[in-house]
């Protein structure tokens, strides 16, 4: 099975790193969209179907928390699993984001294997 994902982070380096982790975890990607902030992410999502969204929180413009809020409010988008990858490790933030519908949370800095575990938890172990 091939996956379509959207990676949202204002750092091109982090987007590239996350993409590499997804691929090395065994998830074959038929499409990998990238966005620099929440507004760009929503633009993509209104045009393309994705199986998963990975998003940072601290971004200029529409941040990750606002993105999750808008996804939750949009019937056509709220079912898409989202994993948050953020430097913010505070319990209050994590609880808020999970309540907004985030399916997974990875704190930066993270080991690639931690993201893999979260991907497998959210999407299942990738099939051959």
């Amino acid at each position: 099975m091939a996956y379509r994902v959207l990676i949202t982070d204002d750092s091109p380096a982090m987007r590239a790193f996350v993409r590499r982790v997804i691929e090395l975890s065994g998830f074959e990607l038929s499409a990998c969209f990238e966005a620099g902030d929440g507004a760009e992410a929503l633009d993509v999502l209104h045009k393309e179907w994705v199986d998963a969204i990975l998003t940072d929180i601290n971004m200029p413009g529409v941040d990750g928390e606002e993105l999750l809020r808008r996804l939750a409010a949009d019937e056509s988008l709220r079912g898409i699993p989202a994993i948050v990858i953020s430097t913010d490790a505070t319990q209050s933030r994590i609880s808020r984001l999970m309540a907004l519908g985030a399916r997974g949370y990875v704190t930066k800095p993270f080991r690639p294997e931690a993201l893999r575990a979260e991907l497998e938890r959210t999407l299942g172990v990738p099939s051959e």
Partner: protein
Amino acid sequence: MEQIIVGMADCKVGNVPGQLLATYALGSCIGLSVYDAQANVGGLLHYMLPDSTIDPARSKENPYMFADTGVPKLLDMVCGHGASRRRLVAHAAGGASIMDPKAIFDIGKRNYLALRKILWKAGILLAGEAVGGGNSRTVRLEIGSGRLWLQEGGGQKTLVPSFPAKGANSWPTVS
């Protein structure tokens, strides 16, 4: 069952079911095991130091002494026997902190970090690991079943059951 011993600064590959690759006395050294369940090919490397640039002449004599020369050779060897890099399942053991008052650096930790960097660059994530701490370890890899055993501080456990069982191994999974 043919037992193939992997010594210190050594590396062996097996492609005959029933072969058992084994390495002992993994203290600050790292034992890296890789296995391709489809091709039934596996390899075990036991290296001692992270970086060959400190002694390039030595690494030409024996690339398995160092992580940066040993790991690529292990990968080449298993792939040469029909393994596919994408299908390799990798486990690491060792990297213990050996208490040595003269040691300034924690060689075990440096060996472990070197491994993670090299595997990341080679496009391989660890499926499981048993590293750090103060115990010496022994690792055995069985070709055919892909079973992996770890012996540590007097106890022994089967870490990887027979394939196929992707994601179901009982090594402390890396996270």
